[in-house]
């Protein structure tokens, strides 16, 4: 198989890079293991949320003060604003209705009712632009009976602390009652699948409309639409008050939908998405990667002019730690990681953990290296990169989107 670019990894960064290349006419193949951390994403993108425990209000202004090794510094602080605009437009083009501005963070509301900084948030989700000017005074928090993946008591409490008046209502419908008979089925994704028909949505709307009282906004858990926006759009029209959703515990319905819509867009642009496969080996000739071998294709290696590593962090097995070391499993690329196992972690679970900054080493053009020698046609993007901290800095999705676009520009300008 002959392609211009092969991307290893089909999550947020891999798909974004693939879309940017395919839009410019490249033949792109994505090798996707099927695991994406978007399943843990509640429907927001973060550019930069925190530095050393202090919330960041204006990400673009703050990026210049990040340490040298941070991926944003590598791709150039002056390019961030335009790459961020491009990323937002790409998401909108894929049908993902996000709102937000890279210049100033807004607040998303987490399943536990915590307000957390974000750059882009799905328009269906509860979003707060200014904590002093809440989008509603009185909320009707609608809780699905027997659904424990929305910690409702914590959510209600958090919303009250943010200054909302909250009326908590529990409801069920025939579809939900049926689903509840199987004790392990009450998960967000199962609900979304069961609640997609017009009739099912109408029954929810009837419940909501009869219970919402004099609230001026209705909140529901985000369990609508695994692959498109239809469920929410239909429900919104049936509910006679403004309707917003709140993220649930994983698997995230909104995250699954973003993944599905990006993949759909990529394939619509002619991209080739190899689902359920993963790169296992690369062959180098001089300073160039010529082919990669995948688990499923076996002795039919993939050949391309350029390659992109978008395999993610430990969660996605883009990085592997064993008893003795941290390594990159496909190519054995150079990684930034402490050698001593005791340095990988800290004693308190909520302390910053060193391992979350580990990743592959790259130069300013995101090119990877092996044993100190740069590989001319292999770039790394997203969570596999070292020098950032998704959990503590709130920069994971931003790094994925922006490095993906930067790598795509690099590949296109090489020609």
């Amino acid at each position, binding site marked *: 198989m002959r392609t211009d670019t092969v991307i290893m990894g089909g999550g947020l960064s891999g798909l974004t890079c693939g879309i940017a290349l395919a839009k410019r006419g490249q033949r792109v193949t994505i090798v996707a293991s099927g695991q994406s*951390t978007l399943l*843990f*994403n*509640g429907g927001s993108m973060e550019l930069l949320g925190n530095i050393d425990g202090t919330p960041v209000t204006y990400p673009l202004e703050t990026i210049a003060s990040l340490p040298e090794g941070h991926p944003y510094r590598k791709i150039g602080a002056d390019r961030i604003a335009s790459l961020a605009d491009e990323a937002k437009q790409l998401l909108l083009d894929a049908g993902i209705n996000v709102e937000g501005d890279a210049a100033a963070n807004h607040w998303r509301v*987490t*399943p*536990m*009712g*915590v*307000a*957390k900084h974000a750059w882009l948030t799905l328009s269906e989700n509860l979003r707060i632009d200014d904590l002093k000017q809440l989008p509603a005074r009185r909320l009707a928090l609608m809780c699905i*009976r*027997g659904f*424990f*993946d929305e*910690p*409702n*008591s*914590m959510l*209600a*409490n*958090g919303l009250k602390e943010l200054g909302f008046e909250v009326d908590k209502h529990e409801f069920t419908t025939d579809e939900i*009652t049926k689903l*509840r*008979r199987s*004790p*392990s089925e*009450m998960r967000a994704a199962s609900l979304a699948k069961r609640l997609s028909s017009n009739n099912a949505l109408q029954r929810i709307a009837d419940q909501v409309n009869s219970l919402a009282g004099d609230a001026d906004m209705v909140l529901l858990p985000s369990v609508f639409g695994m692959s498109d926006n239809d469920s929410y759009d239909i429900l919104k029209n049936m509910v006679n008050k403004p309707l917003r959703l709140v*993220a649930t*515990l*994983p698997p*995230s319905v909104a995250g699954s939908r973003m993944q599905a819509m990006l993949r759909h867009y990529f394939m619509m642009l002619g991209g080739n998405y190899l689902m359920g496969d993963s790169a296992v080996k690369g062959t180098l000739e001089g300073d160039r990667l010529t082919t990669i071998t995948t688990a499923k294709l076996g002795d039919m290696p993939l050949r391309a002019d350029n390659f992109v590593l978008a395999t993610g*962090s*430990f*969660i996605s*097995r883009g990085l*592997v*730690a*064993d*008893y003795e070391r941290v390594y990159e499993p496909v190519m054995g690329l150079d990684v930034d990681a402490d050698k001593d*196992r*005791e340095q*990988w*972690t800290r*004693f*308190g*679970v*909520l302390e910053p*953990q060193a*391992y*979350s900054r580990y990743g592959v080493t790259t130069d300013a053009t995101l090119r990877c290296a092996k044993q100190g020698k740069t590989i001319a046609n292999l770039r790394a993007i997203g969570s596999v990169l070292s020098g950032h901290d*998704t*959990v*503590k800095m*709130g920069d*994971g999705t931003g790094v994925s989107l922006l490095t993906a676009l930067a790598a795509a520009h690099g590949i296109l300008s090489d020609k």
Partner: protein
Amino acid sequence: MVTSDIYKNEYDVIIVGGGATGAGTARDCALRGLKTLLVERNDYSTGATGRNHGLMHSGARYAVTDSESASECISENMTLRRIARHCVEETDGLFITLPEDDLDYQKTFVEACQRAGIRADIIDPAEARSIEPSVNPDLIGAVRIPDAAIDPFRLTVANLLDARLHGADTLNYHEVEGLVMNQNRVEGVKLFNKLSGEHIEVRGRVVVNAAGIWGQRIAQMAGANISMFPARGALLIFGHRVNKMVINRCRKPANADILVPDDTVCVIGTTSDRIPIETVDDMRVTREEVDVLLNEGIKLAPSLATTRVIRAYAGVRPLVASDDDPSGRSISRGIVCLDHAKRDGVEGFITITGGKMMTYRLMAEIATNAVCAKLGNTAPCVTANQPLPGSEEGAPNQSDMTKRYSFGERAAIGRHGSLAARIEKDNDIDNALVCECEGVTVGEIKYAVHQLHVHNLVNLRRRTRVGMGTCQGKLCSCRAASLLGELHHDVRRAQKDLADFLDERWKGMRPVAWGDTLREAQLTAAIYEGLCGLDMAVSNQGKEDKQ
């Protein structure tokens, strides 16, 4: 009984320590008609009781070196199979000889077992490989013995429950700050309620010190000196159960030579190190301990090399120097019961220590005999024959369960025996699964909160195994915290509790944080910090509390 009424009571006997020994003593005392109070400074089973293999020794391990302990073990082993069968899994065990071991030891071992009354059958290595496929295939000898697995959390709770059914009162999170002394007589305990901050005195005619390694400090409060030698042992839990039977090395007891199957996982241990008494509260497992456990464990069952390690933990066994040798050279692993009237001239005070989790019932019987002697009570001990709640005649057991039971019900019957009937399952909400790894339902959590003294998620884990499976509480801990928040009507406490629970899980994961355990840690951080902002919720609380 409500706590404030307990404070006003006067008791025949107050037992200090909520491990297996204390719980067993409370049960025995209550069954003999004594008005009984048990106090525990943390949660029940926090000390050595909850920090061992979960091995129900046949006694074979001690047969060669300590025949007295061996006889005690086999006798208690047979007793527990009757009275606590819902806590026991009858696995049997192997003592294997590897090429680097001396096969002659096997003969010594079998003879010693026979002298102690322990069934010990030499079997062919090929047969050993066939009945226990995970065993090191290079073995050159094998002996089959009646080892088994026991759940010490369940065992302790069953003893506490029965004590309460027979009129005893129990208080957890009550720390003994001092003893109520009247000249040379102990007349009660001074308590600190760690949940409410109250300081209270409760009177009792006899106080039993069953505080394990922390018993040295309790004895000091009465002016009695016991020389304890803390022996620390570290263990590793593997993510699934590779072995059906307990696997031991047939050699003199050494580091990491026992692999025990426990429910869905298996445990290798222990190391053994003498540590200073000042360090007994530091349960961090070191890198060196992990290395020893892994290297030795792989020799018992080679597949452990590729099995995920989910947790490391350590416990401290209270070894006691015999009174005529304070240097500590001659340390007894056996049961030590001290009547401080005879020994130190302090009336109304008994210490029960040494021994093993395995012999907790015998220790309780010995201690209760000493209490009864002081109080002139002549009731006989019945604990060796009377089944614990959950193991009565006719109670369902796991082997005869049919399809009538759901996964959650089967798991609950496994954990609570006949008491599982008290778990609400009248509606579909109570049947909903909170913890998928361990099959814990909403109903079981309600039962634990209402009946089993659950204040927080760590308590809940000890009562139900919630969060103990391979995912180590990734999603179930949030579901359970939210439920506890509603049942206790305190959401902010539930969030703090959730953070503490994740921290407690992390303490055990950190020493083995590589491979899939590191992945799980990153995933947990992505969910609870990234997605949910739990770290911010907890630190916001801290800021407000300061203001």
